[in-house]
């Protein structure tokens, strides 16, 4: 297990470079991301097993996520709390080479298109997702959805009330509504135009960015509680995993999500839909909300998840999307990594070398690189 301390900055996201087997980027924010600035670290894993900082950039606001460019080995995008997205170049010190500012609230996730490779998507708390090209100063496309007032995290009586005042200080006293926040948006590794996103009103949404009405599938995935993360299975194009504040990781087969109940843009989800469709598999074990879930790039049945219970768990999903009755019942949690002393926020599988190497980061200002196969 290789440690690195991002001193003074609490980790939010980590990703392996798609070009170098020993390079990591870590997005961090001071004061746990509550207030203050952020810092993007580029780390090198040395042959002697130490992790050293190659370079880093300080930003005005906390950084919540990052994505390496798939077309340029020296470029990284970072999502900032002030609503901006910044593109950094490893050979350019101190300042970002691009800065996009269109989102009105915190940008919580950025994800590079793995198939097209020329664009990336950002998801923000302002309820919209935007597709960007690194060459262009403006976004290419904006995706947003109608708010669902029927879920537990955004019940009608608290969210659908008309605003009582236009004065700022009175607005602030109202309950903070996270139902519209999009926490994560990820391009499919199988299609250049398919995106999965999760939001604060428990919905998992599948988008086709070519379609005139891009929302393709929309369902409640975590029983009305906030859904925080989602990822595509790298081997099975219709399988996704989602995680949320109901402490569970759920595996879904998109072919089994009925489109009949898909609501109109103007009509809320029918009441019976609070329960939502049935997942292919459910992985239980985390004691607090699950913050991030990611499928292994080497194994279609393995995934890791980070959680507010300060642990990272490695899971084996034995469900068979072709024949559910053939489930082996021997899947589940394969290991717990408990080295982190605070909430674990970000994680990433290494694409390189021996399969199973993982990097994780969290609010204890630590980045750990470890082997998911060698957990007790």
């Amino acid at each position, binding site marked *: 297990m290789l440690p690195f301390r991002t*001193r*003074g900055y609490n980790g939010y996201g980590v990703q392996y470079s798609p070009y170098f087997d020993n390079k990591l980027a870590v997005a961090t924010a*001071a*004061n*746990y991301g*509550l*207030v*203050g*600035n952020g810092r993007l670290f580029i780390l090198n894993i040395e*042959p002697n097993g130490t992790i050293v*900082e*190659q*370079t*880093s950039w300080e930003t005005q606001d906390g950084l919540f996520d990052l994505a390496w460019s798939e077309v340029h080995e020296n470029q990284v995008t970072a999502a900032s709390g002030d609503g901006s997205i910044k593109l950094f170049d*490893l*050979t350019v*010190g*101190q300042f970002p080479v691009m800065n996009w500012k269109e989102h009105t609230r915190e940008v919580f996730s950025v994800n590079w298109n793995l198939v097209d490779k020329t664009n990336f998507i950002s998801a923000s708390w302002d309820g919209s997702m935007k597709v960007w090209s690194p060459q262009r100063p403006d976004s290419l496309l904006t995706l947003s959805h109608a708010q669902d007032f029927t879920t537990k995290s955004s019940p009608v009586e608290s969210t659908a009330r008309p605003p009582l005042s236009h004065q*700022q*200080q009175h607005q*602030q*006293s109202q309950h903070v509504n996270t139902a519209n926040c999009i926490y994560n948006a990820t391009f499919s590794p199988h299609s250049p135009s398919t995106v999965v996103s999760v939001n604060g009103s428990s919905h998992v949404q599948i988008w086709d960015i070519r379609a005139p009405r891009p929302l393709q599938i929309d369902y409640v995935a975590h029983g009305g509680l906030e859904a925080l993360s989602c990822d595509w299975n790298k081997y099975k194009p219709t399988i996704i995993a989602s995680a949320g504040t109901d402490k569970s990781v759920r595996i879904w087969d998109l072919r089994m999500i009925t489109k009949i109940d898909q609501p109109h843009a103007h009509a809320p989800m029918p009441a019976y839909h609070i329960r939502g469709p049935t997942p292919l598999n459910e992985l239980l074990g985390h*004691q*607090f909300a699950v913050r991030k879930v990611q499928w292994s790039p080497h194994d279609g049945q393995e995934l890791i998840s980070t959680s507010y*219970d*300060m*642990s990272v768990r490695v899971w084996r999903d034995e469900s068979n999307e072709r024949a559910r009755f053939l489930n082996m019942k021997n899947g589940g949690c394969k290991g717990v990594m*408990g080295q982190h*002393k*605070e*909430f674990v926020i970000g994680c990433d599988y290494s694409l390189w070398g021996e399969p199973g190497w993982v990097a994780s980061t969290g*609010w*204890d200002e630590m980045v750990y690189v470890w082997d998911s196969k060698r957990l007790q």
Partner: protein
Amino acid sequence: MDASSCGPSSALANLSKHTQRDNTLQNEYAAKNAQLRTGPAGFRQNGNAVDARLNAEFHNFQGNGLGAEFPAFAGTPSFQQQAQHLNQQQFQPNNAGWVQDFSGLSISNQPQQVGHPQSDWHQQFLQQQQHHHQQQQFEQQNIQQGQQFAPNYASSAFSMNMRTNLSTPLYAQQQVQTGASLTEHQEIHKMEQEKQLFDSHFDQLEKELNQQSQEKPEVEVQVDKVENEQFAETARQIENSLRQFDTADAATKAKIENSDFLKLMSSISNKQVVLDGDKLVDSTGQDIRENVNEPLQQISRPDYHDPIHDIPVPQEARPEQINKLPDPLSHMQDGSLGDVYDALSAAKVVSGGQVKTGDWVDEDDEWLDMTTPSISRPKKASIMADHWQEVYDDYRNDDDFH
């Protein structure tokens, strides 16, 4: 701002350029167009311009009101116009009777005569119309004289056409004229009122802005207070929800108890740590990040001027293979010689400025340089003895040597 400078040097100058432009021609044109729309083209240009008396009359008329005047004159209908028409029609005995009949029957002609028979401008207008009419009728007479044997019905038909053509516009035009003067007059009033309204609004706004700027610090303090209150409340909720969590897992429990984040949350809920701008400060006003166990000041920031790619040293290099001499090109960054193609500039870059052009290129033709007096030009120090230098120079400069 002088008019000769063509480019606007400031926004104000640009504005004044616009405002000072001579627009009289456009205005005239626009005014003429407006007039054309409201009445016959020649009405005002014939010298019958709206004068003070006319305005007074109009005011009087307006003040009394049409409704008030109407009953007074309703009983005494004026046949002025009809009489005039009769006079005119006497030149045309053939169809005069018919026209009289027609005028008498004409519904559209009546109200205008009843409405304002006294008004001077109305008569002026009528006179003009009549003048116009007479001209046309004179022409018609000529035609009739020319066509003595023309059948009666033809001329009567012609005349009928004239009358029908004129009767309707006469009324309509007058109405339009009245309406136009009404709006014209009202517009002036309206503009004045609007101006007053604007002025009062601006005054009010200015007052409000002044008040706001005076009150602002107070409001900000209040907002800060509210924010900190909410922040503490949220922190309390987070702390409670995590501390109340009962887990059988001893490790997780210990972690929760030792969590720095939860300690921060509890000190925020106790107001020991508060929000101050984009910082979290403790009770002494110090940024909490300054007293973490390892102060931030000790973090060594990488020197961005250092080359990012270290020179790779082979891992299994034997001691005798390691080059002990310093790399003479260590200060060169990768790729920094990319645009250097000739040996001289390469030497200049590599030597770090020690190699100069003069060392490589003979500066024999410096006598061509007339900018400095040749005496003051420093003599280049020669590395050879004087006589050898002379021999060398002779050899270099001797064009006959072959």
